């Protein structure tokens, strides 16, 4: 059992790292830094999935771990890299709300999700139950990132981080979704990334920038 305790400590450590990367993305201003952080988050997530798979003795979790690794650590960051190179975006990303304020909101969200998941913690018997709050917080932080940023690429990364959070929630709440569902979701994410890529090109060619504030121009003048 000692063994199990250490493993569960590793799992909570990885959860903490996921949370840290989520906050890192919230405050990171540079696009490349963001992509790297996103890749790191995917790595911690996939490691965590593997650890949970080991603890719970669920072998399909290994598959989803490998899937996460290949998709979110290698493929998606690569696609985003290519996209940024093609579109020649190298500037700093602008933020809408100032960074310390964003951090405070983020902390409030973490506390809020802890509060929300408190009843589940009481009921659940899984050893990963404590990471559920982190998972929910990751979802919320991803959403917060989409709200506070105005650059299309950052919004996509926010969306992907949000998806990371959902995946994490699934692992920690019920030891993962059925494999079929996970494969489907992975495919969805991949396709979504491609669609986003196409949209980026369109936005970029139309507005000559990826600043989504510009889209306000599409509104009818009144």
């Amino acid at each position, binding site marked *: 059992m000692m063994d199990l305790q250490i493993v569960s400590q590793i799992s909570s450590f990885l959860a903490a790292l996921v949370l840290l990367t989520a906050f890192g993305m919230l405050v990171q201003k540079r696009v490349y830094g963001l992509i790297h952080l996103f890749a790191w988050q995917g790595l911690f997530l996939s490691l965590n999935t593997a650890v949970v798979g080991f603890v719970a003795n669920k072998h399909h979790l290994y598959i989803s771990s490998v899937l996460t690794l290949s998709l979110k650590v290698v493929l998606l960051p690569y696609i985003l890299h290519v996209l940024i190179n093609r579109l020649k975006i190298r500037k700093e990303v602008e933020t809408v709300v100032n960074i310390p304020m964003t951090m405070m909101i983020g*902390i409030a969200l973490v*506390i809020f999700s802890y*509060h929300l998941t408190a009843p589940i913690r009481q009921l659940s018997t899984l050893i990963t139950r404590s990471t559920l709050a982190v998972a929910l917080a990751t979802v919320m932080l991803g959403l917060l990132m989409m709200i506070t940023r105005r650059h299309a690429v950052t919004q996509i990364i926010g969306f992907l981080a949000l998806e990371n959070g959902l995946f994490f929630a699934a692992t920690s709440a019920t030891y993962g979704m059925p494999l079929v569902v996970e494969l489907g979701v992975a495919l969805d994410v991949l396709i979504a990334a491609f669609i986003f890529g196409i949209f980026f090109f369109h936005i970029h060619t139309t507005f000559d920038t990826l600043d989504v504030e510009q889209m306000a121009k599409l509104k009818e003048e009144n």
Partner: protein
Amino acid sequence: MMDPLNLAGSAIILLLGTAALALFLGRKQRLLLVAGFVLSAVASLSATIAGVRVVGWSTTSQAIMSIGLPDLPFHLRLDPLAGFFITVVGILSFVVSIYSIGYVREISKQRPIGRLVIFYALFLAGMFMVIIADDALFFLVSWELMAAASYFLVLFEDERVENRRAAFLYMVVAHVGALAILLSFGVMSGLATGFEGFHGYTFDAMRQAEFPAVWATAAFLLAFFGFAAKAGVIPLHVWLPEAHPVAPSNISALMSGVMLKTAIYGIVRVTFDLIGVFPWWWGSIVLVFGLISAVMGVLYALMQHDLKRLLAYHSVENIGIILIGIGLSMIFRSFDFPLLSSLALIAGLYHTLNHAIFKGLLFMGAGAVLHASHERNMEEMGGLIHFMPWTAALFLVGSVSIAGLPPFNGFVSEWLTFQAFLLSPSLPSPLMKLLIPLGAALLALTAALAAACFVKAFGVTFLGHWRGHHQPHVQEVDWFMRSGMIMAALLCLALGVLPTVIIDWMDTVPEQLVGSRIGTTAGAFGWMWLTPVAPARASYSGPLVFLVTLSVIVIAYLLLHVRSGSITRVPLWDCGFEKVTPRMQYTATAFAMPIRRIFGFFFHIREQVKMNPQAPHRTVPGRMQYTLRIRDRFWGWLYRPLVDASFWLSRRVGRLQQGRIQAYLIYSFVTIIVLLLFLR
């Protein structure tokens, strides 16, 4: 030996007698001055002795005086809680009375001081009466005496419009507060014995009554609102920065140092003693308002350039810190942690005492500066340490104390508050566990900003060069003023270095209110070490910090002066620029600029830079003009709409004003008819 209650009572009678005497001494200003303040000092000292004894012995004495309304006698009671506040008020009044002999003598050269002495004595008497009152009627009568006397004191220099305006604002807020307190007592006394009789008006009846939860909440909220208005809790603080600067400085010292504390007394009395049982969220209301007041108070203080306004905003901050302690204590108590509750209560009360002393000292120092330099704006001052070495050193002691730095007293109470915060993880509610530590962070922010603010206040006022346009004719103040300040400064040091002794003394207050004491654990490791819960948990030794630092300083000094190295005085290095003038020094505005920018959201800032258009060329700018206006956002958020609404309402009501007698008769007639109809 006299019974403490008799002693306190005779102090009050002596003060009332002083006021009466002052009426007759109007012609003999010198005698009036000395007699008035010496008698006040004696009365304050005897009240202090009474308070110290009551707290130390943990006795409670009661009395009934059959004056006042028929069948509604005044009840008096002196228990440890009242004794503690009597001590707080007494010590500072004593010190300030001595200071006043010197301070008011200067005033007496310009104007008659009869009014000042009368209301001074009445003001002190009112504060003592509020504290020993044991029924709602006597409490409110005393409360009004205190408010009215302080109103006239604020109005002392009444030829200036701003003073009248400030006094009026003070009066309005005080009365809105008093109304809420009256309603609160009404609710409690009505529930205590029913609405038929009046006998519920004694505090004893309220203590014994059990209130339904809804009405208890109503009574608490009303009382908290009323006392918060008096204490200057944000957002009810607006009168403080207006009234304190215009009052004579000895009065500001008393108002800020102890009058605000009567409101703290009221909050503690009503919640812990009269209502007795309360849910945890009352405590969190107090805690949240305490935190807001602390942080906002210090931020607004940082933006002030008027020394006394700055100090007034610091009172808001410190009231916040006191309320943090009391709020934590309430939370701990409602979750049934008597030991932690008493720790937090001690922290709050200790800060009450500390704040009285150091804020009194600082206002006295500000008064000395004001009186010597005739200047209130810090931007025009500077270098006063060379002209007023005593005042400067004493003001520095006050600054270090209020900034919460060891080994002075402000640190001890803030440290205790931090310890109370650090013990919050034992609370059962998970959400509280996560949110309360953030409060501790806010308190840390407050303490650090207070330090920044007093670097500014002391640095700009006393250090550097004189910034004013004309040469200063500044002299050190006389010995009466100096001795008042010296006593306060020594108290600051003593309260900081000997916390175990003080806590051992005041331990009877939490014992009375929450049924637990921390004195046994706080001094468990010896009198030198303050260990609030257990030695392994946390410890602080004021004496050792003081002595070790002092000895290192002395050793270093002696070692370095064995070989008598000489000191060469040279003019200031000017970086090769020849015309260094005092106007080039960092100003208070400049000092606060980074903080102003970082926390800009909290202020209403209007900043303008104007270039003179008549400059010879674009590259050679002429005169530049920089204007900066910073206002309290609460005016715009809260008070402006209120004022507008009340004007709107009065205009509507004003239509009733016809100017014709018949119309008024109709109003009365209709009223009578309606009354007769409903009250058959």
